[in-house]
């Protein structure tokens, strides 16, 4: 036992440094570790713009879907209900249909038309004439079939509209889906 204590005391007192070989091995190992971490870091830094771009595209699509569903929610009469085109009389915050924005809502006919990878929005008075300018609200769409409908039994008037925006971001497909039940009863009902 005293011998063991002595050896321990000697080891504690010993201040011998590292050999050159030990230092070189340690440096090599350290370089490998740091190099690996650095490679991952650089890779992540490079992919960040792509990720941000994808997120931005999704956010833009969210805004579009939100706008469409909001107008559908307060819509009351769908005159055109196709997979790539929808016309609905709804409430728009504008002084005149297709005119400047206002704080109060008026009833206008809003038409969404999707083709050639984009969707446009056209605002017109409920009688349909004269329309305002068509404004592009979505681009880069993989499919023009944006709208789907649910009809109550024995009715040709949809009461629920599904909205699905599909596009490709950085080579990968992205689809945003939402849907809304119309709150305002149709004039015919």
């Amino acid at each position: 036992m005293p011998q063991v204590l002595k050896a321990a005391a000697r080891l504690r007192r010993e201040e011998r440094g590292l050999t050159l070989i030990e230092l070189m091995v340690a440096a090599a190992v350290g370089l490998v570790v740091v190099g690996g971490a650095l490679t991952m870091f650089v890779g992540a830094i490079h992919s960040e713009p792509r990720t941000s771009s994808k997120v931005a595209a999704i956010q833009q699509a969210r805004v579009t879907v939100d706008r469409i569903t909001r107008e559908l929610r307060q819509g009351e009469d769908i005159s055109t209900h196709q997979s790539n085109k929808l016309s609905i009389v709804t409430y728009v915050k504008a002084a005149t249909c297709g005119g400047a924005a206002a704080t109060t809502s008026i009833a206008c006919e809003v038409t969404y038309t999707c083709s050639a990878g984009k969707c446009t929005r056209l605002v017109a008075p409920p009688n349909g004439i004269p329309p305002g300018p068509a404004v592009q609200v979505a681009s880069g769409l993989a499919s023009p079939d944006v709208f789907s409908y649910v009809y109550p039994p024995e009715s040709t008037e949809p009461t629920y509209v599904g909205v699905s925006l599909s596009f490709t971001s950085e080579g990968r497909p992205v689809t945003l889906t939402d849907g809304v039940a119309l709150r305002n009863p149709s004039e015919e009902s």
Partner: protein
Amino acid sequence: MAQRFRILRSRLASEGGFAVPTVLLMTVAALGVASVGVMASIQGQSGTVRDQGSKTALTVAESGVDQALLYYNRGVAPCTPAAAGDWCGPVTGMSVNGGAVSYWARLGSGDECEVGNEIECVEIVSVGTVGGVTRRVDVMASTVSTEESTGGGPFATAGVLSKEDMILDSNAVIHTGSATNGSIQLKSNARQCGPASVGIGKELNQGPNAGYFSDALCATKNGSYQQQELTLPLVTQGDAATNNDNGRFFSQDLISGTASNVCWNGFTAAGKSSKNCGARELRIDSNTTLTLTGSVYSFCKLTLRSNTSIYVASPSVTIYFDSPEACGYTSSVTQLDMDSNSRITSASGNSATVALLFVGSDSIQTKIQLDSNTTVSESCVQNFVIYAPRSDVNFDSNTKFCGAVAGKTVHLNSNAEVRSASSSSVFTLPGVDLPETAAHYTPYRFVECSAVQSSAPDYGC
């Protein structure tokens, strides 16, 4: 000097100085790598969270509108405005989904309602807040009259009603809506062609080859039915038992056929005493017709046999069947008994209104029996009603009934068929004054408002 050199040598030999920076560097590098992915993920998910928040807030705001409408539809205002037509509120609504909801409301009329023909309207602006996300909605609702809201009569929504179970057997068909407080049983090829509703907790059961269809033509299969309570007010006959047109027999209400085949009040139409009929009992036998020209009759029993008929010549007729107690019956009695090609019809070309109303009894069973090719038809264009909320109604053997029927129980058997007369939906029960109900508000305009809220509750809507 040697001491200092030893200390320096000792520090240089120590590995602690290398370990700490190395670990720190690796930690920072790892955090940097991870943070890029985490930031992108957070950015992406924040949109999802915002969408969920806005939808939940919208739902909460709409719940405020519903709560306000519930108040108004109960005839109670949720708040009191300073002056008529002013906004009142904010009223703090019941919390939904952990959110907070408050609403303002104001009553309007005429042009304020923005759409024509409304008696009154109410505008409700409701604000819902969930997790810091706020949504405002503006809903306008207009009244419909009490008559419209109550449907105007017992047959407003269904042509066949029963307080208890409704049974369709052996090829029986109903070509109109049915409603019961009990169950509906469709047995052996029976068909219910029209929307059905059963009592709370009850069912519509379908037997072999039976069918339930959503339309009167039995074309479209239906898979759903309602469960709701059905109320059938009792018949109030007033003074009809004593003040009626029974005295027109047979001086003004004439017979076509054999007078001895008609028995009324213990005497035949020929004036001879008969045991075939008792007090206020009318019995017509064999190839004879009676024409009714009065408007109110009071019977205890009506029996039609073998190719007999009653023609209603007056513009409208109401035939009351008095209670079995008042008629002196002590046991089960069939108060309307028709068989073998007997008929009740309006005179040709006359838009008569025909109603057979049965007072019935809770203690003595009363029955209505239509058998063997009997036809009670009004070409499905005029009011024709059998209303017997305390009697059991049976249609049997190829009976074709066209009109509306209400009974304690309704049983169709052997090819019996019921069709709805379009005008029976507006039939109202004489002597029954429905209590005044609160005006019923139905939403007609839903608008989402901007988040900015000003002094006027509907600003930005």
